[in-house]
């Protein structure tokens, strides 16, 4: 069984939503941060101009916990573009975080065979340089501290 490694970078242009640029700026510094409302403390992802609970535009970017959980996943077998032909099968992971409610991250679990994935398994954040200067948040099985 092949294990998933970071996919080759695809040229899909720049983020179209301005708030997404802020998310990626933190990633470039290898910091996974989510928006948290400065008024009511609600976490949210994807980034948005205002808080969905209280409509406040004031938000802080707070660090995500280093440990997450595999909420769901898929194994992609059919390459969606010829550029990924050598990468299939690869996994796509939906990662949730304790205490962050429905905030989840679409990512990948690297270094594991497809049949090793199980919904609910603990994961920890790792950074990989997908292309020069572009750091992306990935996950590996197990908790960060032991």
């Amino acid at each position, binding site marked *: 069984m092949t294990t998933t490694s970071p996919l080759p970078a695809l040229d899909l242009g720049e983020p179209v939503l301005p708030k997404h640029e802020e998310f990626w700026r933190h990633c470039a510094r290898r910091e996974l941060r989510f928006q948290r409302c400065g008024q009511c403390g609600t976490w949210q992802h994807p980034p948005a101009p205002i808080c969905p609970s209280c409509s406040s535009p004031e938000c802080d970017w707070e660090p995500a916990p280093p440990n997450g959980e595999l909420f*769901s996943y898929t194994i992609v077998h059919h390459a969606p573009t010829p550029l990924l032909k050598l990468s299939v099968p690869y996994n796509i992971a939906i990662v949730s975080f304790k205490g962050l409610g429905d905030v989840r991250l679409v990512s990948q679990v690297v270094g594991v065979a497809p049949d090793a994935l199980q919904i609910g398994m603990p994961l920890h954040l790792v950074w990989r340089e997908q292309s020069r200067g572009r750091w992306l948040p990935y996950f590996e099985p197990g908790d960060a501290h032991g």
Partner: protein
Amino acid sequence: MIVGIGETRYTKRGLQADRGEWALACEATVKACRNAGIDPRRIEGLASFSGDTSLPWLMQHALGIQRLRFASMVWGGGGSGSCGALAHAVAAVESAQADTVLVFRSIVQRTGSRYGSAGGFSEVPQIDLLAPFGMLTPASMFAPMAMRYMHEHGIRHEHFAELALTFRDNAQRNPRAVTHGRPLSLEQYMASRMIAEPFRLYDCCQESDGACAIVVTTAERARDLPCKPVQVLSAQQGGDAGWGAGGMGTHTMPAAEYGAGNGHQLARDLYADAGITVEDLDFAQIYDHFSPLVLMALENFGICGSGEAGDFVASGQIRLGGAMPLNTSGGLLSEAYIHGLNLVAEAVRQLRGESTSQVTDAKVGLVTAGIGSTPTSAAVLAI
């Protein structure tokens, strides 16, 4: 009232590219008008969805529309808006903004814009958060929902197979179906390749060329027409809370609904507005872009309890003669992928008694749209 339906030939994607979407839209429209007994020039409103390229001015130009009073486009890619466009048409007619409204969808898939490949699907504004991890197509966007659904409810591939096989079986009686003459066995289904787990090839809908059109008019006008009018008891759009970044976004919809789909509130509103309960339904045409999502829709729309859809389909209830025959034309999996407007046409045929897989004494039917994004839509039709 729906008074006319019209469809072009349905084919595999690309086979009608030489004609183009506008020509197909016009053909389906003229057929729908003939079916209704209405002169196309008398159409007063146009309603479509999913960014149809046959723009109102093109349609007015070609059809010779004399008095264009209403034009509506429902946002969203794919087929979340099929019944939404119908809802807009009905609203326009009921509020006297237009006497007769055409609902239509025309699709020709060109090379380089396939639904199954990256680049043909760039309308997701959150794509920069998904694409670096290889989430580039509807299959990989909805597959994690289905994985969670299987995990929560013990659903198996055999349950998905029953949907694919039932719809393919229905298509064998329907000469319009692209898969007519190509039956599917359980062995073939199980041996088919994985696209994005748990979706096998035969869990994913086709890519098709073709157009479908529906004519909506007032009850008063319908009385003077030679056709058999079908009532729209209710047609609505709806989206549950928290689905703004759902299956086609960052998968941050509420955990309880993650493996259940987006349609609970819509179903309640729809049945209340139609003045029916789920027991009144004689059949359903459920949006089947991916077969696992049909199971979710069966639960969303109350046809099954939560987690019970797998057992329900396994017991043969969705086949012709069962308690709730589904997708009697073959659906998107086996008739054609016209973004679900062909499901509305099939519901009309059922109520007129004209289906190739006719449900005995069909009086009330449900049609749903894609439940993976928001808002989705649905309709209850009756005779």
